[in-house]
């Protein structure tokens, strides 16, 4: 991706001091995004970052583009307005598991079904960070926090499943610590026309440290990261000895030698039916075992913005009477001398 670009990371650093806790996964994501933006051949002023409220949502302040740190949960709606107002902009939504899935769940699913041209990055740390550690809609059941001292009773969402059920055209997952993979996902999301949704597992080292240990720990990660790569069999493990097969009842982890490489699912995010993507999303309900990472689904569907533009163009072509006087004339008038 890094061609002869005009920008460096520094061009995307705003003057404002970054105010996350030392060690927070948000720093890593910020660096990945800034580097990615610098790698693009697109004018800096064409990027807009809209966020809600939460630690993650402080993000726009640190990126030297246009941005709005809005209110809790509403970023997808506000970003929709930006994207529809100017289709030339690249509009990013930064949200958290609380911001995007708790208070903002509705705007999120509606943006997904409408396929507005937005790149939504959901920083999932499975906790409310900014308010100091309450369970979130992605926290595992039974989680003990200050608001759930005996354990949370909530069965969590699986953000990928939810997005797929909400008619998403692009759904991916990545991990803060894996900057290379994050960059790949950003690139894919950037290229997608319509709403791109990336769930980013992000470590909150203060209130939910090591939630993703299984995927980031030196010991564990190899055995648990299932990279989804288009056109390739879904295998993982140290020697790619494990694989995923997909049947009607969903996806399953197998030893490759038990079933043979041919039986292993070849990943294809562009399948018209979301069935396989959905099955893959069910492989792990939160990072408690082998977990798929990558683009689950990427299909084309007209974007809301394009449809809006063409409807307006149509209307203009059909009806040239666009003064207020025309309007009133059509309505009917009379004259008093």
């Amino acid at each position: 991706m890094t061609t002869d670009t005009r920008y460096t990371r520094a061009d995307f650093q705003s003057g404002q001091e970054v105010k996350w806790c030392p060690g927070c996964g948000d720093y890593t994501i910020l660096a990945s995004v800034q580097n990615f933006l610098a790698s693009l051949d697109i004018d800096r002023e064409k990027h807009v970052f809209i966020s809600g409220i939460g630690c993650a949502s402080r993000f726009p302040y640190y990126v030297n583009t246009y941005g709005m740190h809005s209110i809790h949960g509403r970023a997808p709606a506000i970003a929709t307005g930006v994207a529809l107002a100017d289709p030339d902009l690249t509009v990013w939504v930064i949200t958290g598991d609380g911001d995007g899935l708790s208070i903002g769940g509705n705007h999120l699913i509606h943006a997904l079904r409408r396929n507005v041209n937005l790149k939504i990055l959901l920083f999932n740390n499975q906790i409310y960070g900014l308010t100091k550690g309450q369970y979130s809609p992605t926290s595992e059941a039974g989680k003990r926090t200050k608001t759930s001292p005996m354990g949370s009773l909530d069965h969590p969402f699986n953000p990928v499943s939810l997005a797929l059920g909400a008619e998403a055209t692009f759904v991916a997952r990545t991990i803060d610590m894996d900057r290379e993979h994050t960059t790949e996902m950003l690139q894919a999301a950037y290229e997608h026309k319509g709403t791109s949704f990336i769930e980013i597992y992000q470590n909150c080292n203060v209130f939910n440290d090591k939630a993703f240990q299984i995927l980031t720990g030196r010991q564990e990660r190899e055995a648990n990261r299932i990279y989804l790569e288009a056109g390739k069999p879904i295998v993982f493990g140290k020697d790619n000895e494990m694989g995923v097969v997909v049947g009607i009842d969903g996806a399953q982890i197998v030893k490759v030698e038990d079933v043979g490489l041919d039986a292993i699912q070849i990943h294809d995010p562009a399948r018209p039916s979301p069935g396989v993507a959905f099955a893959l999303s069910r492989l792990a309900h939160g990072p408690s075992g082998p977990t798929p990472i990558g683009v689950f689904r990427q299909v084309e569907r007209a974007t809301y913005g394009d449809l809006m533009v063409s409807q307006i163009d149509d209307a203009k072509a059909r009806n040239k009477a666009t003064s207020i006087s025309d309007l009133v004339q059509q309505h009917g008038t009379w004259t008093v001398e």
Partner: protein
Amino acid sequence: MQEETLSPPKPPEKRDRVVIRFAGDSGDGMQLAGTRFTESSAAFGNDLATFPDYPAEIRAPQGTLAGVSSFQVHIADWDILTHGDEADVLVAMNPAALKSNIRDVVAGGLILANEDAFDQRNLDKAGYESNPLTDGSLSNYHVMTAPMEKLTKLAVADSGVKGRSVLRSKNFFALGLISWMFNRPTEPIYEWVQKKFGEGTPVAEANIEAFRAGFNFGNTTEEFHHTYEILPAKLPAGTYTNITGNQALAWGLVAAAKSAGLTLFLGSYPITPATSILEEIARLKHFGVKTFQAEDEIAGVGVSLGAAFTGHLAVTTTSGPGVALKSETMSLALMTELPLILVDVQRAGPSTGLPTKVEQSDLMMALYGRHGEAPLPVLAPSSPSDAFAIAMEAARIALKYMTPVILLSDGYLANGAEPWRLPDFDDLPPIDIEHATEPNGPNGVFYPYARDEVTGARPWAIPGTPGLEHRVGGLEKEALTGNVSYDPDNHEMMTAARAAKVDGIANDIPDLEVFGADDADILVVSWGSTYGSVRAGVNNANKAGYSAAHVHLRHLNPFPKNLGDILARYDKVLVPELNLGQLTAVLRAKYLTPAVTLSKVQGAPFMANEVTKKIVDLLEDPS
């Protein structure tokens, strides 16, 4: 189409005004009959004012009181102010319509009833013990009846419309009869029907035949020997159209966007009685306007805020419950100091309340319904056509001062219609806006929170502008830089600056003109859609020998600069409001004026005589 031969047998009686109310079941098409009558009266040149009133249900059970829908129109040969306190003529399509409307008919008024509907079943449903058309209980009125259903059936027999649909045309029968009685031109009706239902289609034919039958019935029936003539009003010269408040508001927004050279963006979620603004603007895509039906009110204002950030003239429309939901986002719009118009077409609350009825009870919420110190300009149109001007004024203020603005319309004004003398659309005041394109600080720095010295507005630099990249947001902003600031003094200063910006608009709005004498015994202060009734009420009082003055507010925050002086001139101040006294409280707090409220909370507009009576009471009161 030779209806012009159907001239009345006797010369018509001249009247200077008449109030007609069409009332029937929700399914009877009364709104349509009323609107058509209004339009042909408008085309004829009368002044007029209307009051549509309908139930919250799509179609409440047929024949019941709950299901009655009515449409009142006041036509006159002079410049009238209201839709009329009492009806001179009531068209009652069934017993329920008669029962729920009779109390508004003037003594001696005409009741024109559809006798076919006065059968036992319908009488029962309406709760009549005996048939009022025959039991003598209507002896105070002049009652006429017509077998509208029977005659409609006969009339439309050849139209091709079949079965139960036949009766759908009975509103056109009634309309025909009334049109005959008041010498209305028929051509506009025919034209409209052809256009609406398709030239020569069975439905068009049926409606025209039913209309003609009603017209002829009047002409030929003994009982209906009498017709009336209301001459065209001596309105100021000009071109007129007949317009409802929601339509005028929609057009005003479109016009404002044109004047400012911006794209109009409307993000909205349907809610009665605001929905038709969205509907009206949605059909104007050829103007380049963008409309977005959001998933809820919060998203509706959210998308609009996004569009405002991106340089559009952004608007969101709703009614009370929606305003409540938008409060948090309005507060963000205020903190980010972006132009955004929130239109609240008020209805009777609290909660779902009476969703199709009028009330002015959202004033306090508009002024104060946000957390923190969050002042916003608030405006209200005074009549349907004024909604055009007020929409432009809202846009002017929002854009010039970089502030959200709340526009308080209401259900009465939104659906009511009046003739509107058209302004010169080529000569509407331009709205000058300038998007920032250059850094405004030292060393090429851009200060998004630098303020214009006069207006206090910050610059509007829109995404896509090179070199002006910046971030806005809901945390307190440092002056100039717009960076997040927790500095105590900065917060106090910015709080004051936001308040001062709004207060300063007072220097940019016209002084109020008082109607009536400086030394009148009482000043009546009104706002919003009550203008017509209150002015008429004041007129009546003055005609009756009292001395009352009237001032009407279109700007509710800030108030015009001379309001304090005006209030100070009068010992008695009366504020008629369709609430429990909200403006009154604000006036008392601000000016320590001993204003009192005339309150009405019945989901209905004031009658002029209610205002007159209160004036008289106060002036007769020795205290």
